[in-house]
């Protein structure tokens, strides 16, 4: 049974699906927070993620060139998060703030413009070509392989996947702590619930908005670094390609529901990988080339059947 089914399924479909799901989940958290608190679909979110990942790579490359030390991508993610947060706050202050009371559609279109501006800027600075984010082949974790050595149930999971899944669990736990147990986190939920009531309650909405960019920016950079660790490459279009599955995840979980977005991300990631499994016969059920179509299909079905998402988020 494991020989015919499990080995291939777990190693080549289930684990990669989970990994992809983690990346979508972290990206979708920022989308859903911005949607809930600032009330607009931020098309530039993928670019924030991409820019942060470029910053991480640059930091690693500079350290390597000056000291000869190879930093783990997760270390380089720390200054990158700081950089991306500063960028997000500057963009908010000088670009989105004047739109605060404008109709949603204007802000959405403004964010579309910001997406193009940021991507072009990155292309000007780093060039349009692919960059190797991590070199070499990440072999399956030896300990896990040894532990499950019989070919019948051998697990071939590279270290990077442990980092991604473990890192995502840690980030989601931190996010949970922030939103449920801290003053600013509760205020973020309150503003997401009703900005008007938050204002007449005396909550400083601008502080909450800044907190949203900080949390969204940091999780976006982590998603980007995880994605680059997984694919081992950097591209200026990586953020844009993530946009659709991230929105699909946010809508699936319910807009304004961060944990719904995490759940939605996992579902979309798993679905994209699992549809390529040969469920019937020996051919992939759906050709891997249509992977992105899966996220799109899930999003369309959700919007028709249950636009408020699984965890009953906001509808517009």
């Amino acid at each position: 049974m494991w020989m015919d089914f499990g080995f291939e399924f777990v190693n080549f479909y289930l684990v990669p699906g989970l990994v992809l799901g983690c990346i979508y989940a972290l990206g979708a958290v920022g989308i859903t927070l911005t949607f809930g608190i600032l009330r607009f679909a931020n098309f530039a979110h993928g670019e924030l993620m991409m820019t942060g990942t470029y910053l991480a790579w640059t930091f690693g490359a500079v350290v390597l060139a000056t000291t000869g030390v190879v930093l783990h991508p997760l270390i380089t993610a720390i200054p990158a998060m700081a950089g991306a947060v500063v960028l997000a706050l500057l963009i908010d202050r000088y670009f989105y703030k004047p739109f605060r009371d404008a109709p949603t559609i204007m802000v959405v279109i403004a964010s579309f413009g910001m997406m193009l501006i940021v991507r072009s800027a990155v292309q000007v600075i780093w060039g349009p070509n692919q960059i190797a984010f991590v070199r070499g082949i990440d072999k399956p974790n030896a300990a896990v392989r040894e532990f499950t050595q019989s070919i019948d149930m051998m697990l071939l999971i590279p270290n990077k996947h442990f980092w991604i899944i473990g890192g995502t669990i840690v980030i989601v736990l931190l996010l949970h702590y922030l939103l449920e147990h801290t003053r600013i986190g509760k205020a973020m939920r309150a503003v997401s619930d009703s900005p008007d009531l938050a204002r007449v309650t005396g909550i400083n909405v601008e502080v909450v908005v800044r907190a949203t960019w900080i949390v969204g920016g940091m999780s976006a950079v982590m998603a980007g670094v995880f994605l680059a660790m997984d694919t081992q490459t950097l591209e200026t279009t990586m953020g844009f390609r993530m946009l659709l599955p991230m929105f699909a995840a946010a809508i699936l979980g319910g807009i304004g529901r961060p944990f719904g977005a995490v759940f939605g991300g996992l579902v979309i990631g798993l679905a994209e990988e699992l549809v390529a499994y040969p469920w019937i016969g020996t051919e992939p059920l759906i050709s891997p080339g249509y992977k992105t179509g899966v996220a799109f299909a899930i999003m369309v079905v959700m919007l028709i059947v249950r636009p408020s998402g699984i965890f009953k988020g906001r509808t517009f």
Partner: protein
Amino acid sequence: MSGPILEIDGIHAGYGETEILHDINIHVDPNEIVAVIGPNGAGKSTAIKSVLGLLNIRSGAIRLNGEEITNTPPDQVVTRGISYVPQTQNVFVNLSVQENLEMGAWTRPDGMAERLEEMYALFPDLRAKSRQAAGSLSGGQRQMVAMAKALMVDAKVLLLDEPTAGLSPKYRGEIFQTIRNIKNSGVPILIVEQNAKQALGTADRGYVLVDGANRHTGTGEELLADRDIARMFLGGRE
């Protein structure tokens, strides 16, 4: 203390270009409940919202303890000690009852535990529900949460916008009793009510607004006894 706590002094105000309030005068003295009544569209809720800085005041002044606060943004108005309970959507439905109260204390986060305790003493029904989402409560209980949330700061005056709208008679009675309790705890109240009879029965003084302007002013009893008002709002007959 001498002089009114809150004073709305001859204001003309509206949203954008439209003027809704034409020369409105309302004041709230220490230790009193003031009711504002009037037909639909008379500008009662708008008058309250003008205090909050939610609309554009063209002339006239709003004063809190003699200090002018005209056109101050809402979060700063709250910081200065004016608490407001909107008519609808007055609780954070996705937050628990306790979290709602904590948010109410946003501008004054110290001594949270004692103030939560005070609120549970004033609204005993809420204690058992403190961990429930506010959105899962009944209308009357939500109103209680909203009032408790507004009282979490040291309010100098409490503004209530139609607190009994849509509630059952049982809850209406309870809300008015709570309003008297709040007054006895030392917080003056400005209440806008559709339910004129009960509001005037509870209030020390009342104002009748019609078409965005003051029409009558008097003590609760005087207004209740006024034939004109009785005919207009109280369902009384000639």
